[in-house]
């Protein structure tokens, strides 16, 4: 049977002393208090009849590493001798997407170098015949490593049974020895008491915040505006100047690059078209920009081309690229979780792009239909979040729905197209900003809190 170099974590033996974290920091000279290995504790609050589990985890050097697949700059690769998944920091652009797609929260952004960093399995120590520093530092023998046959590795379902781990198809190289049933938690002489949750939940720092990702929020909205205007123009609405179109698109790209840790390497974002949806987004959007600008400048938008007098293949191609851009953006965010609202989300870019196209083209009925769907899904999301005890922001919600309705009323009264369009964009901007604020990447910490709420009967089902 095939074997893999894997970490072994015995939950029965870990006392949560954090020596593995410290040994890692020391051996790898991890600067500034960052941690490549983290011990996360389930039930730190000591809720009765619920076990405390210390889960020591670094990078699990997955067989199907989602970080490597998702990385747009092709900076993540596998070391052949040790099987370690490594980051080439000379190629990394610091886009943080690997930290979003990793189910274990392993890659972390390094503020000093502007690139991502994570556990490298102590490849140097391993090559010299040593053990990873964390393993050497464990005082109880709870942490070990070795070459394990595939069937001894913890399966996707096995992961799900450990608080803090999601069911994942990534194939982590880890063997978790689950708690023995008789060692779950002590029978206590004290009466049970359920502590308040809210403040605990507030202590979890989200990976994605609007404060940091606002350039992305604006960039993606800009994409939908450009696609919407282009589609609308193709449907007969007034076409913008090709040069302006191109300039705005490039400005959007630059803005998007603004959130990178290494902006000078932004071009590498397109280096991994073969597997990374981020690279695909960039390349397809670039194609849309160029084709669209050419079409706007040289082509007569519409069923026939003034220059060639054919049915306009280039216009269709540009439109296809535009729609593909919207789809690829939505695909990138599939890994993120947003509580409430179901599968279709009011901030999905495809809906935004198509609605803006309809508005630009003056197709009021179509625009109203899409806006209606958006309004309903937005309202459902707010309702569900309220039920989960999450912030609803009623004033902002009223503004969002109010502007959407106002756009409809304005169109009904025959207001100029551009005025209606601007009102819709403002409404979408609110939604988009809220979307970035509410996006959650499921982390071991958030999964642990969810699990604890379920285990104590606080919440029966969490989306």
């Amino acid at each position, binding site marked *: 049977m095939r074997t893999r170099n894997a970490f072994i974590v015995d939950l*029965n*033996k870990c*006392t*949560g*002393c*954090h*020596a*593995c*974290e*410290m*040994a890692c*920091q*020391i*051996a790898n000279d991890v600067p500034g*208090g960052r*941690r490549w290995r983290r011990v996360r504790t389930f039930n730190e*609050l*000591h*809720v*009765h009849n619920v*076990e*405390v589990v210390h889960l020591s985890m670094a990078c699990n050097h997955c067989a199907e590493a989602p970080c490597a697949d998702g990385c747009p700059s092709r900076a993540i690769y596998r070391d052949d001798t040790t099987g370690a998944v490594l980051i080439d920091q000379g190629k990394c652009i610091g886009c943080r997407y690997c930290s979003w797609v990793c189910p274990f929260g392993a890659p972390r952004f390094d503020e000093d170098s502007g690139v991502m960093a994570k556990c490298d399995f102590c490849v140097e120590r391993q090559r010299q015949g040593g053990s990873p520093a964390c393993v*050497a*530092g*464990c*005082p*109880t*023998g709870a942490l070990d490593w070795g070459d394990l046959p595939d069937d001894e590795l913890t399966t996707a379902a096995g992961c799900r049974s450990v608080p803090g781990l999601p069911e994942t198809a990534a194939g982590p190289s880890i063997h978790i020895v689950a708690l023995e049933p*008789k*060692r779950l*938690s*002590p*029978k*206590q*002489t*004290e*009466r049970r*008491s*359920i*502590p*308040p949750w*809210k*403040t*605990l939940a507030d*202590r979890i720092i989200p990976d994605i915040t609007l404060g940091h990702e606002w350039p992305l929020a604006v960039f993606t909205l800009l994409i939908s505006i450009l696609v919407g205007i282009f589609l609308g123009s193709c449907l007969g609405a007034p076409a913008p100047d090709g040069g302006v179109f191109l300039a705005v698109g490039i400005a959007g790209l630059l803005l998007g690059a603004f959130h990178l840790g290494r902006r000078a390497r932004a071009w590498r974002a397109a280096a991994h078209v073969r597997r990374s949806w981020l690279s695909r987004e960039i390349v397809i959007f670039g194609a849309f920009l160029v084709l669209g600008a050419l079409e706007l400048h040289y082509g007569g938008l519409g069923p026939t081309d003034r220059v060639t007098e054919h049915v306009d293949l280039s216009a269709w191609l540009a439109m296809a690229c535009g729609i593909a851009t919207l789809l690829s953006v939505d695909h990138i965010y599939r890994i993120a979780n947003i509580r409430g609202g179901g599968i279709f989300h009011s901030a999905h870019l495809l809906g935004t792009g198509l609605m803006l196209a309809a508005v630009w083209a003056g197709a009021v009925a179509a625009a109203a239909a899409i806006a209606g769907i958006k309004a309903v899904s937005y309202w459902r999301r707010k309702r569900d979040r309220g039920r989960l005890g999450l912030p609803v922001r009623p004033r902002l919600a009223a503004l969002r729905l109010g502007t959407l309705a106002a756009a409809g009323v304005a169109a009904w009264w025959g207001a100029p197209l551009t005025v209606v369009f601007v009102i819709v964009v403002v409404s979408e901007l609110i939604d988009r900003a809220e979307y970035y604020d509410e996006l959650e990447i499921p982390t071991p910490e958030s999964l642990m809190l969810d699990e604890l709420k379920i285990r104590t009967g606080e919440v029966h089902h969490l989306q």
Partner: protein
Amino acid sequence: MRVTIKDGRLVAVEPVAAEGASPNLATPEGPCLKGLSYVERQHSPDRLLFPLRRGSDRRFSRTTWDEALDEIAERLNRVRSEYGPQAVLHYAGSGTKGLLNGRSLDFWSLFGGCTTTYGDLCWPAGLEATRLTLGENKHNAPWDFANARLIVMWGKNAAETNVHQMRFVYQAMDAGARLVVIDPRRTETSERAEMLIQPKPGTDGFLALAVARLLIRNGNVDSEFVAKHVLGFEEFVAMTREHTVEEAAAVCGVPPESIAELAGLLGTIKPATICAGFGMQRYTNSGATMRALIALVALTGNLGIPGGGWVYANLQTQVFGGVRDPIAFFPPSKPADNVRVSVSTARLGRDMMAQKDPPLRFAWVERGNPLAQNPETHKVREAFRALDFRVVVDQFMTDTAREADIVLPAKSMFEQTDVIGAYWHPYLQLRPQVLPCPGEVRPETEIFRELARRMNLDCSKLDEMIPGPGDAEIRAWLERRLKPLGLTLEDFSGGPVLAPGWEEIAFVDRIFPTPSGKVELISAEAAERWGADTLPRAEPPLESAARPDHDPAFPLQLLTPNTKNRIHSQFGNLDLIKLHDEGPELQIHPDDAAARGLTYGDRVRVFNSRGEIRVPVRIDAGIRRGCVSVTNGWWGEQGAMINLLSEGRETDVAHGAAFHDNLVEVERL
């Protein structure tokens, strides 16, 4: 530990393996957090590298050794001529251990004498209870823990304070052993236990005697062992009848069924080990409590057998001194010529101020941080400030060092060769010098030698008492100490060495060096030496929520346990440690928090009639209602001097410090 030095820097601390010529069977896996963090501690930018003198503006500035030592010598001469040598207080903590580090008293005897302390902050009541009952403080080898079939961790949180012991706990459990933990807090140690009994703090004696009563009633006493090796069984049995199990359960605040369950396990599973922590013996009733606990091991015949016993302190490596602890903590019956042993460590501040003929004028503090660690900080500070002059020797600018007139930089354990023992495992170890002293740091031996020369003391015996600076001189001095034990430094070249005369199974020969030669459940010495009851009769502590007459204004029992992240007031200043422990927090039960309108993270005032501290709240459903907890050892600048709240009280025996007789109230700031 094995350390790696690269380019003059300590870069790694790793364990010595369990294999080889000198195997390390006690701690072969990784070091603890503190051990690992030496890589930072050794080279910390906060380390004191030069002598410091405090100016009139109370700020410290660098001075030279010559100036510092000249001034100290001059001050000492003046104090001695004006008041006599005993106006000097010599205070030493246990920051760095070793044979050489005990040499400072030799200097003070050359000086003509001094005043010093008796008692100890750490563990004397438990030591004395053990000595009175079993005759000696020793226990089975650490690895023998794995042979136990029942482990009762009584007030001990080994996962934080003795993490290497947990390996043996889990080995025992893998072989089928049962684990019971008794602690007011749900700790990491209790997490894998089958039962956690959470008595009111300080009532463990009631719990133990109730268990004893049930053992006797259920016929679970090892009558053969008791008949041969136990003194006072009849009297003890009569005493256990003074309280019913239900009465004891009410005092302890635990269900009688849980007591019965514990008695059932202890009565039927053998070998059983009771492993006791130190926190439980920091009450005013602790001597009696600990004696009652040891009685359970004796009644069930769990002494002198593999996997059984009373695991509290293993002083089998104390092979150099004349007397072992706790005797060494007591004021000597025949005082040494000129050393006045008159200040109780537990009452340091008020005893310092109470000294007369002569009063104290000068203090020398080394290896300790009494402003952080001794009870009633405000009195300790007052006493220090009332002196004419203070010298503190330390590696860092501690709360105590900040009170000094002159601070002298202390060496680290990597900067002078020494031989060290242990509290738990039976190994003696050579701790060779692996790094030069940084900056202008000088080892304490050199400080004393320099002072002696400056003060024209009789230096003819100096070299014999305190070796010279070179490593060769130190090693020669150590060789002379090792020789009577049949050891040479060469024996340590491969790793740790088992202490001469050590026993893997303590008391295996059933020889108990008590006055009667038996396990003394009744102890005449307890009464003679301490005025205590001859029997371990249970009483609640003086300041305890378990006393019906306690002050209702302060309903919460404050526990000040140790943490895995620090050793008392050491290590908390390191960045590596701060990552895991940012600052003091008050652990409080959700119900007690709700009653005071507190939520997670709220800042509160923790106060009693003695003082107050201000800390954030950490809600913890695992702590017993009515108890709150803040780990001890924080410095003032780190956010909480916990001993502002404690009273300077001695334990019932052995001059320990009863820190945990401490009731407080909590309110939101």
